């Protein structure tokens, strides 16, 4: 796998959800076929109430439900996304530990520039990664619009 293809509308869903959750992390699932993202599903953050605002987790049962929904829609669960508020869009050690071989991992670095009282002005950076097999390292993917 070398690239991910994502449509403008899906990019907007991604960045909107990251801005809405800011300064907290948001996460979700990406559905599609192979390297083509056709749908983005926001899953919130089940760590919200208990942990720090720079940590997320998705409940396994929620993922399973989404897989089944995707099947009905004729797509597949091909990966996950989460945001890094005020951090670079590179995977942390914790992120890497949870990367399933073959699954796409999209990270959105989101930063609010400018000091109060300026209104929020976000800048985002979207990057994609994959671990091709359990022995291999993390590889960055090229992100292409369609």
């Amino acid at each position: 796998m070398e690239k991910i293809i994502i449509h403008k509308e899906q990019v907007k869903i991604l960045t909107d959800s990251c801005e809405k959750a800011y300064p907290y992390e948001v996460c979700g699932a990406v559905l599609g076929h192979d390297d083509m993202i056709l749908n983005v599903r926001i899953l919130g953050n089940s760590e919200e109430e208990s942990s720090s605002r720079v940590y997320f987790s998705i409940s396994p049962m929620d993922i399973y439900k989404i897989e089944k929904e995707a099947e009905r829609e004729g797509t597949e669960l091909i990966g996950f996304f989460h945001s890094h508020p005020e951090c670079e869009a590179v995977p942390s050690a914790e992120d890497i530990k949870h990367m399933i071989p073959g699954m796409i991992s999209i990270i959105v670095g989101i930063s609010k520039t400018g000091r109060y009282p300026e209104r929020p002005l976000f800048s985002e950076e979207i990057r994609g990664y994959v671990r091709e097999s359990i022995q291999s390292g993390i590889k960055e993917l090229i992100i292409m619009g369609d």
Partner: protein
Amino acid sequence: MKVYISATLKNFFERNSVIDVPKKNIRDILTFLTDEYAESKKVLFDAEENLRSFVQIYAGDENRTDRVFWDTELAEDTDVLLLPAIAGGAPVESIIPDERRKAVSFDDSEVERFGRHLLLKDIGVKGQKRIKAARVVVVGAGALGSPVIQYLAAAGVGTIKVIDFDDVSPENLQSQVLHTSRDLKRPKVASAKDKVRNINRNINFEAENIKLEADNIVAEIDGYDIVVDCTDNYKTRYLINDACVICGIPLVFGAIYQFEGQVGIFNLNHGPCYRCQFPAPPEAGLVPTCSEGGAISPLPGIIGSIQANEVLKLIIGIGEHLDGKLLVVDSLNLRSKILKVRKNNNCPICGGNAVITKVEDFDYEEFCGLKEVEEEIPVEGFTPEELAKRIENGDLMTLVDVREPHERAIMRFPNAIVIPIGQLARRKNELNPEIDTIFICREGKRSILAINTLREAGYAGPMYNLKGGIEAMKDIIFSHEGAWL
């Protein structure tokens, strides 16, 4: 038994999503699957045979990932599921930019001095350079400031600015270990400076013997990396929070009262601020400040040390810290808990429709009830001398002590009845409206609140306040009482 395989994992099971396994417990099921599908073994388990972080095992709706469940026999119709766990987080980053870290170097004496930090994997040379590059403001060189300033200096923080307008007084020596008997009547920042110089002469120490106000705070903290709140009053606490939000500086907050302390980090990367949790100070006089309330000696040592530790973690960029959280420590019963502070969209200063846009736009003095309340609602009062004379004359009057129980234990007021402020309105019938009632508190502020409270509750009798409170009266000794304690 049917085993359902998540789509995320089925590539390792020859793309099967349901597999029939003739086994009755999870351990046997896993052995069967990994024997049958060779590729799955190295994906599910690491080299030490531990299940990988991204694998979860469910039996029905129950998470059975933990090995303690693996030998339990499952009912015939149980569905076993192999699911993914997806988690992660942003990497913890230092608040000191790399350019500044790289500009720092150490000489031999520093390598020797900080050797123990340099050996720690999570600090090392990089971390220690960040510490040296850091510029930290500590507001308050009192109880909390004492451990904070000394530990930051010992750890090698390159620039430490300490702001405090107070002089050292004897009662400070019980908990403010920065100062000694020799420092009495000197500015607190002066003894702080001496202490820091004795620890490490290379530290750039900035002493500010001033009172922080709305019109000077921004200039005092702007350009620094972290502000540590070691103050003991609400006025300054809100002033610091607001200035930190406006300047975009993270704030390490600490507070102590009696046996309890709190630590939290606010305004880190636009995270929640102090006002998100406490939009406005409590009503004037209801919560005594530390200088009124008191705290056990080592408590500020505990809380201040945690503050210093959080400051260093932010500087180095390690660990999980109290960002958006409030650690509450009860030193009397040795309990602690961490409360979550959520970003509040209606926060008056950092929320979406913030009403506070500048520090100077806000009248803290009025807000916190520190302004002389007498200006607005006249309250008549007696000076300590006047009251002493009336007591000696045997004038008919009721004395009401509105202090907290623990405060009265230290200095009892003779012949006073005791009614805490919260109970005044409903206990007003205990007072005789035909004679004068004199209200007493520690500093003469809560007693004014007591009078206003009773007025509002409809009490019509004559009420007076002891000006300056018990503090002002403690040098006067009644001829017939002998002594105070």
